[in-house]
């Protein structure tokens, strides 16, 4: 696990170094344009457990909590999903309706929208703003690369994967990364609240 953290930290630091480098003029000059570092550039179409299609950019103006998991994962993933719920649940109730959750399965073969619907119901998370989704293989892998999530399917059908909960800000940029299971979520929740307050003030 330790290695994973080092690799991910390396990825994140190289990403933020580039972000700082570009910040100054481009951010103010092209305020209406999508930021160079926004995940909205990923044109993927995500199919939800309600059989609806969503894109990342349609959440513009609202934060998105993103977690990657798979349905047949009975050991670690329920904890990861519960961590995601803890983050969501720590956000001030009056702001929660503006927060979206994208739970992306990397098990395309098994996690159809129907299976994801059962999963959402079983976890009692078939609630507004929560989307359990699947997509094209290349799009799922792209999202993982952008977030710094690694996963590989093992020959027994299980996946080895990193445990990461991320938050995209109101422009689609990665603003929070919580690595590992059972991490404290309060500071991440405060950041989400700040994003929303800041965004509505503009």
């Amino acid at each position, binding site marked *: *696990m*330790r*290695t*994973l953290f*080092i*690799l991910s930290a*390396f*990825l994140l630091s*190289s990403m933020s170094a*580039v972000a700082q480098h*570009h910040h100054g003029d481009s951010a103010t000059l092209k305020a209406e344009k*999508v930021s*160079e*570092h*926004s*995940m909205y*550039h990923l*044109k993927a179409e995500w199919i939800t457990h309600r059989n609806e299609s969503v894109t990342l950019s349609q959440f513009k103006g609202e934060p998105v909590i993103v977690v990657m998991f798979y349905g047949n994962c009975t050991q670690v993933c329920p904890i990861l999903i519960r961590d995601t719920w803890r983050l969501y649940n720590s956000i001030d109730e009056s702001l929660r309706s503006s927060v979206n959750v994208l739970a992306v399965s990397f098990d395309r073969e098994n996690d159809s929208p129907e299976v994801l619907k059962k999963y959402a119901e079983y976890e009692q998370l078939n609630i507004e703003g929560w989307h359990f989704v699947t997509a*094209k*293989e*290349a*799009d799922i*892998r*792209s999202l993982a*690369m*952008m977030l710094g999530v*690694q*996963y*590989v399917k*093992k*020959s027994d059908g299980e996946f*080895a*994967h*990193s445990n990461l909960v991320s938050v995209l800000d109101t422009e689609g940029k990665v603003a929070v990364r919580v690595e590992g299971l059972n991490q404290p979520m309060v500071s991440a929740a405060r950041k989400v609240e700040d994003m929303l307050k800041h965004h509505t003030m503009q």
Partner: protein
Amino acid sequence: MAQQEQVLIPAGSFHSILPEVKGEPISVDSFYIDKTAVTNEDFLQFLQENDSWQKDEIPSIFAAQNYLNHWQEASTPGLEEIGENRPVTHVSWFAANAYCSDKGGRLPALNEWEYSAQLMDFDSMQEMNRFSTELIGWYSSVDAKNTKAVGSTGIQNRHGVQDQFGLIMEWVEDYKPIIADELSLDCGTVGRLQQLGNTYSYAASIRYITRMSFNPKTTTGMVGFRCAYNLEDRESSKNSEL
């Protein structure tokens, strides 16, 4: 431009230097893979149909500054300068992944690529050792400035997949594997990767370590790609053409 020729690799197993279980081979299902790497010409055609991946359009979240910087201009490789049928390089993982997705495929999984690369036949042990020595030499001095044409190395596996060695390094889908706890990205890692006692394993170690040093925005003159296809996807696209 002719459609990239694809080769069927039958299911099988191989010994990886990063096995799931120590000493156990890794099984790989059958898949199709491009016979040769994607060329500048192929990639230009993709860009003409997909503006957002052009050099002057691509957002920095998808590629480093030197994306396609061997091209004369954003809109043309300048083939008289580069040469024809050269593998496209200076492409990020994101761009390679988008290209393959556009073609109805995907990047080969790391284990698929490695499995295909090991399916080579040699006349003798001496021949195999000679090849291995050459390979190690090649990895230590990949000439990114004067890339030869695809199909020109004379190196191919028993199913006709060409140039997996000797031309460029190639992106794979999961190029940064989830590696065992005892491994880390330091100088000792090559030594600690599992040695298989065969001629490939040292060259393979170099390859795995080099891949691990990339991030998905990396664009270098050393790295290009080819695509792979699931059997069912390829069958269905065939049917829709009929």
